[in-house]
């Protein structure tokens, strides 16, 4: 990307009449990062191949050319190194945004994220904050080989001290990445890579909801479908199909996996009396498990059926040729809806 094109984008952003733009999630993340970097020179991007190449998914395309090699670091190939040094940089006031190339490559950094980063503020008794964002493209549907399609969110939601979020639309991607960067706590920022290329409207003038809000994205009266990340689009599709058969489905996009904004979910279930959680990750001790349990506690007297879950099976993410049999699809979601309605 040329410098001229980039400055054109910046000046366009200043013009209020062009506040609504249509773009992909990929582009929205790029624009969100650009804006956060322009607003604060403490924001530094770190990762493998994110500079010259712009990242393997091109999320950081053009940013090194625009902000320089000290703002966008093509790091050595070492995930633990990326996160560990980000912690040190945060200690002297930087706001590092780390890119992990694929979900399955985050684990070399697991100690630095869960045992170090997550606990720094606590161990320093509040004397230190850790404004570190770790961006991780996650999830399936891209037909890639091993370690490239996983959903590791539960490891991080299980770790006190980490905030965990996942946008599902371009508008959320644009705002949530900026809000994550502005957070003084570490944020695991999970990007639904299977949806990087979908387009949607982004309002660059005004954020819709705060970072940690969950949100009803479709109104309905019979069953509440809840999920996060890439699967939200599938829930909407399922709702569409169910409507043709006379079932009215409400869909809630959780958006923030830790903390979870339970009120809109509970309110929805109090209205419909039924809930199905859907996620790509294996079901056992997962985000879906936790949200289902809490909703059962809070909406117990409203429930007409047990809260049901649809998830990846409790097996390693399979070879790409058979991922379709592993990942939840519209049929499996509607099967759960039918089961719920049958109670």
């Amino acid at each position, binding site marked *: 990307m040329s410098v001229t094109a980039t400055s054109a984008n910046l000046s366009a952003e200043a013009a209020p009449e062009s506040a609504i733009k249509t773009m992909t999630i990929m582009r929205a993340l790029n624009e969100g990062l650009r804006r956060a970097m322009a607003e604060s020179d403490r924001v530094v991007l770190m990762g*493998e*191949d994110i*500079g*010259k*190449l712009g990242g*393997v998914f091109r999320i950081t395309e053009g940013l090194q050319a625009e902000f320089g090699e000290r703002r966008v670091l*093509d*790091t*050595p*190939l*070492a*995930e*633990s*190194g990326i996160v560990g040094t980000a912690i040190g940089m945060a200690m002297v006031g930087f706001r590092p945004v780390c890119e992990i190339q694929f979900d*399955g*490559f985050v*684990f*070399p950094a697991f100690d630095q994220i869960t045992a170090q980063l997550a606990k720094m503020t606590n161990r320093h008794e509040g004397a230190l904050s850790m404004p570190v964002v770790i961006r991780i493209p996650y999830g399936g549907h891209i*037909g*890639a*080989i*091993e*370690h*490239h399609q996983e959903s590791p969110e539960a490891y991080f939601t299980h770790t006190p001290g980490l905030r965990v979020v996942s946008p599902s639309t371009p508008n959320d991607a644009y705002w949530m990445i900026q809000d994550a960067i502005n957070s003084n706590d570490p944020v695991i920022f999970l990007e639904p890579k299977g949806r990087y290329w979908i387009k949607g409207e982004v309002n660059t003038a005004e954020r819709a909801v705060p970072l940690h809000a969950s949100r009803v994205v479709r109104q309905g009266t019979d069953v509440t479908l809840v999920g996060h990340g890439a699967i939200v689009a599938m829930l909407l599709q399922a709702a569409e199909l169910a409507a043709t058969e006379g079932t009215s489905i409400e869909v809630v996009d959780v958006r923030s996996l830790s903390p979870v904004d339970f009120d809109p979910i509970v309110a929805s279930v109090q209205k419909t009396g039924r809930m199905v959680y859907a996620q790509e990750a294996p079901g*056992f001790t997962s985000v879906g498990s936790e949200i289902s349990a809490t909703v059962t506690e809070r909406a117990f007297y409203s429930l007409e059926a047990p809260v049901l879950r649809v998830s990846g*099976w*409790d*097996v*390693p993410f*399979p*070879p*790409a*040729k*058979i*991922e*379709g*049999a*592993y990942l939840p699809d519209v049929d*499996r979601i509607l*099967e759960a809806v039918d089961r719920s309605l049958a109670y």
Partner: protein
Amino acid sequence: MTEPQLVRVLSADGTFAPTPAAERYLPLIDALGDAELEQFYRDMVMVRAFDQEATNLQRQGQMALWPPSLGQEAAQVGSARAARTQDHVFPSYREHVVCSIRGVDPVNIIRLMRGNTHGGWDPFDPANGNTHLYTLVLGAQVLHATGLAMGLAFDGRSGTGNVDRDEAVIVYFGDGASSQGDVHESMVFAASYNAPEVFFLQNNQWAISVPVATQTKVPFYRRGDGYGIPGVQIDGNDVLASFATTRAALDSARVGEGPQFIEAVTYRMGAHTTSDDPTKYRARDEEQKWRGRDPIARFRTYLAGRGASDAFFTGVDEEAKAYAADTRTRTLALQAPGAELMFDHVYSEPHPRIDEQRAWRDQYEATFDVAGSEAGANE
């Protein structure tokens, strides 16, 4: 970043011109007969044809991706041919010819890259020459190799002084992976336990888009010093240097002299994988410069100078063509695995949750039209 003590036997134009550091390895090269030298050449030409065919197959949608080995044939063939039958091999994910030399059917690598399997072969089947699986998380296999080498030492399977019986391990990794903590920890463990292991680093200059200068400020082979592991730097495009240094290193390691480190300076002439476009980050003239150091052209000139006939070269080319064609035929004939495969081998003994989910899914699938079952549909 090449050093005065670089081991090179054949110069880029194919002249037999050993560097001073290569002198001590010459007896190992002198001992090679025509048949062995011709085999090195055949290996390199065959894998280049295979690799090109696999790259084409990926472009035609037959694989999720393909990591080409183009340009790295000499480093891989020389080192693989240097390993003895009883040795153990840990590839990274680009060592296609290392696998085939050890006996692995390379179509299994295609099955892996196609998304049919996460593994592809059984390292414990004698037909596969103790070749372990590809590892996609960079550097992780280096620790496994070290542990296996420690086990060999603890069990007395190495260190007796008998080079025909003592076992050793060779592990492949790259300049990018060298930055991973796992690789450094491997060297600490290997040195501490005097593991019979050769660290074989192919420095192909690029970790996707990141140049080698970002990974190290000193030549890699000197890193060994810091861990107490003797290191040597070789011209990785010289198959003879690769063979001789690896044979010497493995034999030192196997008889109890401890781990050894080889840095093979080479070049990834293709993309990192078919998902990547090298023109975005590196200069054409750099690629051109390395094309002038092509490992196969160099060795061909050398063999021709030794009297190899035109018929030999033509024969190898024909063989390679047939090999590529066979690879294509067998790839196109590959069947997708059944979806039920994903419930297999998650644990070594029955597990109630897996059994329950498998049964649930079977029942669920039975509610659909049987004709639309997944095996055929997904292929």
